[in-house]
């Protein structure tokens, strides 16, 4: 592998234990020289608003550094990623996604029919648009827009440049490093395939485990084979998803029932829980017959938190 590719790859490797303790003194020549080097030459006032407009083709977006996938697993990107939106707001069972091409400051790896934007005033540096690394992402992992540009106007065409072995290695590395993007939608597709019924799925993360609660219809528990064929919310039978677990300080039973348009979550436990939405808002519930009921929940990710036991239960409903 080419040296430069190796160095770039080293940026994504897990931290190794190299003890480096530097203790420069205030009269250190290098310290004072470096300090004077950039002395107030730069304005660091960011003029990019962290706005979140409706995604559109031609926009550059920064991707969230972490997100929770459809199976409630926390996923973290090894590197920050900026993408160019090439197709926006496609829908798959009401979940919005966009097709994006990552951008990279390593313009020297330009090859084939790649595009380069040489104007550093757009996002601070010239960049390569990775046309060969296009992939879908769920809109929910787009963090904020870096502005709308007529990107075609800025592209400097470089003609057809040979794809050397070094450039091919760079592409491979970039495809690997951006798996974080496509994982959002791959996890969603897997969820759709594996959900308990034909139109509804519930995943609960509890006690460090991801569990699919059992599906019940009129108090009868169905295994996944039969459950897959069942539709929820169409006939009049009483259908719900249920999970019972032991926590360190007591038991909990979680029941999720689907209405035509929304869901009702019931929590049976002696432990006090609050329910929070994905954007960290506390949702009001009502107490009834030894349970807490949270009604009119829309599909999404929810957190059941207990202040006393410090346990966190994540619930994905779709």
């Amino acid at each position, binding site marked *: 592998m080419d040296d430069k590719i190796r160095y770039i790859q080293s940026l994504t490797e897990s931290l190794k234990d190299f003890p*480096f303790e530097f203790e420069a003194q205030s009269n250190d020549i290098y310290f004072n020289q470096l*300090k004077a080097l950039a002395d107030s030459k730069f304005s660091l006032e960011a*003029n990019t608003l962290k706005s979140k407009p409706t995604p559109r083709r031609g926009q550059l977006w920064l991707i969230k550094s972490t997100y929770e996938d459809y199976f409630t697993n926390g996923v973290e990107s090894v*590197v*920050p990623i900026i993408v160019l939106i090439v197709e926006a707001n496609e829908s798959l069972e009401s979940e919005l996604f966009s097709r994006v091409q990552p951008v990279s*400051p390593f313009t020297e790896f330009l090859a084939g029919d790649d595009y380069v934007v040489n104007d550093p005033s757009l*996002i*601070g540096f010239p960049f390569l648009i990775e046309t060969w690394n296009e992939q879908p992402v769920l809109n929910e992992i787009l963090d904020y827009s870096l502005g709308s540009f007529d990107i075609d106007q800025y592209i400097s065409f470089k003609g057809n440049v040979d794809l050397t072995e070094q450039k091919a290695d760079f592409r491979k590395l970039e495809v690997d490093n951006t798996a974080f993007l496509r994982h959002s939608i791959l996890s969603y597709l897997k969820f759709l395939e594996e959900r308990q019924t034909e139109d509804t799925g519930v995943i609960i993360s509890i006690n460090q485990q991801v569990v699919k609660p059992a599906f019940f219809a009129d108090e009868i528990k169905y295994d996944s084979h039969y459950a897959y064929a069942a539709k929820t919310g169409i006939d009049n039978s009483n259908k719900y998803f249920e999970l019972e677990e032991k926590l360190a300080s007591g038991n909990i039973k979680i029941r999720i029932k689907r209405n035509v348009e929304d869901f009702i979550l019931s929590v049976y436990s002696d432990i006090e829980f609050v329910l929070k939405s994905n954007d960290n808002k506390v949702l009001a519930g009502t107490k009834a017959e030894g349970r807490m009921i949270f009604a009119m929940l829309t599909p999404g990710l929810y957190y059941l938190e207990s202040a006393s036991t410090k346990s966190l239960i994540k619930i994905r409903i779709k």
Partner: protein
Amino acid sequence: MNRFNINYINDLLNGKLSLEGYNHILSVVGYYTKLNQWSVSVIMPEKNRDSRWEKEDYEELAQQYFEWLLVKGKLNYIHKVPDSYRSYYFLQLLMSFISDKIAEYQKTTGVSYSAIKRIALEILEDRFRKEEREEKVFWSGGDVVIEDAMAAPDLDECIRSLPRVAITGKIKHLKPHVKNCLLSIFEVYQFPIEQETLIKSVYKLFDQSQFHTSEFQSHNSNVELETESGNNYKSQIDSLVLNLSAIDCQIFLSYLFVNDPPSLDLLASKFKLPKSTLHAKITSFKKKIAAIYIPVNQDDGVLFLKNVHDALDKIANQ
């Protein structure tokens, strides 16, 4: 992944770098130096390839890196780089800077044995036949391999007629050349070759002769020399010392016009200048001498340098 703390980078750009921030920047630079096994001679050409990194070498690397950022205009639009991307941006640029330095270093010193060895082993593992005998590794290639070691001719003799690869600034990637060397060797030598002997033979096929010429030697052999008989070199020397300060002249006199030049470390502390600045001054003056005057013969060269010495001495003592 070890990252620059963006607060310290911002402090640096604002001219408010603290000692703590400086030590942090050095520790990150040191971390990637160690991780990628960069040779100290890339930064300090007067050091041996295998020399150990000292604290001030890391300081020198950091200094040169930030100077490079400024010279290359990489910070002109730094305010446009998203906050959460900035730390990674600086690391990417560190890799670009080092790759540039290594390419520059290779252009003046040829290629290292360790680089050839690393690449050769990569290729050998990939496509040649490996065999272990008496704790030694042997490699063979091609369809016909003669196993009778007694019949093996002298390897050096066999490869003597093979063409050499001239290392020039145009060569950016060694791998294809190393691969060709291996193929050529196995084409003319159909016996298994012990690993270390094989790699040494590959290394020998790289013609590094152009890197052993004196720095003062003119690169343009077609220049028609002007006879300077009776000339006291006034116009050349005036142009050479134009805008030089007394300190500059003292530096050149202490380093270039003595039999046993002091180390750059000593000189740096004597003149209270960072080694990078000192190194840049000396290199640029040497280049200027080489460009400004081409001696007709050795005596002419000695006489010219004596005149340069006198001119420097005059300014240094003003």
